[in-house]
C-alpha cells in the first residue's frame, strides 16, 4: 500500500541523534530547527580533557574516553579511539528505538527547488515504511507519495518487510576513497537523485556512516563500527565493516535496508594523503573481505541479531584470521561488543518478530 500524505511523526521521544566529535559542534546551529526537539548523544573522541561546547538549547548527554572506560571497564577495548568509529558507543548506551547518526561536517542541503531538506524527517519516513528486498521495483520505493509497485511486481511481495536501516547520501564532497580523491580532487556531487530504494537481498553495499539512521531494536547490536584508529592498522573502514555485517544479518532475518534520500551537504574534504595511509590496508583486505561476506551464511538457529553477530564473529576469526591477526582481534572485539551491549541494555536477546523472518521467500 502506498503511503498517504499524512504528516510524518516526529518520534522525538523515540529517536536519539548520535554525533561523534573531536572538534566542536558548531554545525548544530544550522540543524537547530530540525534537531532541537531530539535528544543528542555526543561521543567525544580524542583528548578527554578538552571541553566540547554544545550550543545552547540542546538536550544531550556527552561521553568522552574517560566515561567510556568507566562505563565499560575492560570491555572498553572494543570501542575505537581516535576514530569516529567510537560513535557506536552512543548506539549502545541509547535507550531509544531509533538512531540517527551524522558527522560534524555535514550540513543541511537544499533540494533542486531550493528548499532546505529535513534529513531526519526523510530517514523517519524511510524507517517507518516497509522495504522490498525480494524483488526490485523499477519505480524505486513504492511507498513514497506518487510512486507504487509496477506491473509485474508480485502481489504476494507487496507487503514488504520492516526497514532496519536508512542510508542517506551527500551533496558536495562525495564519499570517495583516497585514490579517487587524489585523481579527482575537484569533483563534487551535484546530482540530486530523487529516489529511495531497497538494496536487494543478497547484495552488499558500501555503507557510509555520515548520514545514517537505523532501528536500534531491529539491528542495533550489529551496528558495531569495529576497531579503527589509534593502535589499529586500519581506518576509514568502520562504517564499511558495519555495513557488510548488517546486510548479511538483515538478509538472514528478513529485514530491509534502504538507500538514497535524504541528502545532506558534506562540507569538508579530508586530506587524501592522510586517508590513503588509513585506508591502505583496507584496499587490499577488502578484496578478500567482500567475497567472505558474499558467501557468509548463518545457521537457522541464529534467530536474534546477537546470535547472528556472534556466529559471524566466529566465521571472521576462522576465515579472515588467516589474512592478518587484526581480524582475530576484531572477531574478539565483536564478541566483547555484544557482551557489552547486552550488559548495558540489560536485555534478553533482541528477537526479531516472527513476521519479519517469515515475510517473503527465503
Amino acid at each position, binding site marked *: 500500500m502506498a503511503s498517504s500524505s499524512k504528516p510524518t511523526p516526529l518520534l522525538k521521544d523515540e529517536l536519539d541523534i548520535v554525533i561523534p566529535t573531536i572538534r566542536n559542534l558548531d554545525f548544530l546551529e544550522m540543524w537547530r530547527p530540525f534537531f532541537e526537539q531530539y535528544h543528542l548523544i555526543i561521543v567525544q573522541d580524542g583528548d578527554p580533557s578538552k571541553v566540547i561546547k554544545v550550543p545552547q538549547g540542546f538536550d544531550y548527554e556527552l561521553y568522552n574516553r574517560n566515561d567510556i572506560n568507566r562505563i565499560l571497564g575492560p570491555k572498553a577495548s572494543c570501542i575505537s579511539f581516535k576514530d569516529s568509529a567510537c560513535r557506536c558507543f552512543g548506539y549502545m548506551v541509547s535507550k531509544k528505538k531509533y538512531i540517527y547518526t551524522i558527522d560534524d561536517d555535514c550540513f543541511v542541503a537544499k533540494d533542486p527547488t531550493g528548499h532546505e531538506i529535513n534529513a531526519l524527517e526523510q530517514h523517519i519516513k524511510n524507517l517507518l515504511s516497509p522495504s522490498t528486498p525480494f524483488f526490485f521495483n523499477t519505480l524505486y520505493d513504492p511507498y513514497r507519495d506518487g510512486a507504487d509497485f509496477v*506491473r509485474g511486481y508480485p502481489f504476494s511481495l507487496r507487503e514488504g518487510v520492516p526497514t532496519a536501516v536508512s542510508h542517506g547520501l551527500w551533496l558536495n564532497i562525495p564519499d570517495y576513497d583516497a585514490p579517487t580523491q587524489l585523481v579527482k580532487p575537484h569533483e563534487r556531487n551535484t546530482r540530486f537523485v530523487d529516489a529511495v530504494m531497497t538494496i536487494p537481498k543478497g547484495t552488499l553495499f558500501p555503507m557510509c556512516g555520515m548520514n545514517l539512521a537505523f532501528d536500534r531494536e531491529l539491528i542495533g547490536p550489529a551496528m558495531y563500527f569495529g576497531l579503527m584508529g589509534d593502535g589499529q592498522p586500519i581506518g576509514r573502514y568502520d562504517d564499511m565493516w558495519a555495513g557488510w555485517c548488517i546486510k548479511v544479518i538483515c538478509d538472514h532475518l528478513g529485514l530491509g535496508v534502504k538507500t538514497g534520500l535524504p541528502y545532506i551537504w558534506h562540507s569538508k574534504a579530508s586530506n587524501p594523503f592522510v586517508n590513503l595511509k588509513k585506508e591502505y590496508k583496507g584496499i587490499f583486505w577488502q578484496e578478500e573481505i567482500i567475497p567472505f561476506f558474499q558467501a557468509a551464511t548463518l545457521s537457522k538457529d541464529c534467530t536474534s541479531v546477537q546470535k547472528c553477530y556472534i556466529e559471524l564473529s566466529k566465521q571472521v576469526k576462522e576465515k579472515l584470521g588467516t589474512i592478518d591477526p587484526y581480524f582475530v582481534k576484531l572477531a574478539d572485539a565483536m564478541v566483547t561488543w555484544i557482551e557489552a551491549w547486552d550488559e548495558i541494555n540489560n536485555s534478553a536477546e533482541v528477537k526479531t518478530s516472527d513476521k519479519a523472518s517469515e515475510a517473503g521467500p527465503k
Partner: protein
Amino acid sequence: MSQVIINDNEVDIVIGALHSNLTPFMNEWKSIFSRFHLIIVKDPALKEELQIPEGFSADVYTNSEIERVVGSSTSIRFSGYACRYFGFLVSKKKYVVCIDDDCVPAKDDAGNVVDAVAQHIVNLKTPATPFFFNTLYDPFRKGADFVRGYPFSLRSGVDCALSCGLWLNLADLDAPTQALKPTQRNSRYVDAVLTVPTRAMLPVSGINIAFNRELVGPALVPALVLAGEGKLRWETVEDIWCGLCVKIVCDHLSLGVKSGLPYVWRNERGNAIDSLKKEWEGVKLMEDVVPFFQSVKLPQSATTAEDCVIEMAKSVKEQLGKVDPMFLKAADAMAEWVKLWKSVGSA
C-alpha cells in the same frame, strides 16, 4: 570517463505497430529516430494499412513477411505486442531500441528533451556493476564515481546487455493499481541509471527498452502469452516473463541489466478498470513464477544466450509445466525461438 560515441550503423529501432497510424508517433520522435534505421512490424491482427510519414529509413514487415521467414507451423505468436519480437529477430544490428507507440519524448526537470535512444545506447555501451551496489548509482556517469568501500577488482564492471527505461505521466502500473488510483501520474524525474544487482529479480517493462542483440538477443522470448491477451499493456505479461528470463541469463553469463534513465512520456490510453478482468490472469501467473525464477539454476555448460534459453525452457517445462498449461506452451515457444533465431541468423 571517455565519451561514448554512438554509431548510427550499430542501432536498429524496432517499432511494433499495433495501431495503423504511426504518423503522430514517428513525427514526435523524428529528431531522435531519423538518423537510425527503423524496423516496423505490423501486428498481424491489424487490418488497416500502415500510415508512415516521410523522412525515415524504415523496413516494414507485415504478416506475409513474418510467415515467409518463420513459416506457418510455429508455436510463436507474433500478434499484439509480441509483433516487435519479429523485429528483434530480423535485425542485423548490435543494439536494438524499442519504444511503445503511445510514448513520446519526455523532458527532464530543466526542460530539455530527453534523447531516449542516445541514453539507452550510452547505458549499453558503458559497463554495468552487478556484483556490488554503488550508492552513487552509475559510477560511469559524469560527475559520479565508485564510492569509498567499493572493491577495486569490481570496478571495471561487465558488459551491459539490457537497458530498462522509465515513464513519466502514465507509469507502467498494473490494472488493479491504476484502477485504485485513477488520477496518479508519475511526475518524479529520478536522475539515475543503476545496475540491477545479480540475483535480484525485476519486472522489465517492454514499453521503453534497449538491448545488445549480440549478447542476449535470443533471450528476449515472446513466450508467455495470456489467453485473453489484449492490445493494452495492462492486458499482457509477455514482457515481464521475458525480462525475468533475460535477467537469469544475464546473471548466469555475468552480463549487466541497467534500470532508470531514459524516461519517455507515456500517453493515456484505455481504461484500467476495463482491463482488470483480462489482467487478473497475468497477476495470478506471476505468483507462480516468482519462486521458480528465484531458484532456477543454469548449468556451467550453458555459455551463450541460446544455450541458456534452451536450458531455461527445460526447467520451465519440468517445474512450471504442471502448475499451468500456459507454461508448457511458453517452454515450447522458448525452444522454438532459439531454433528460429539460429536459422534466421544463419540465413
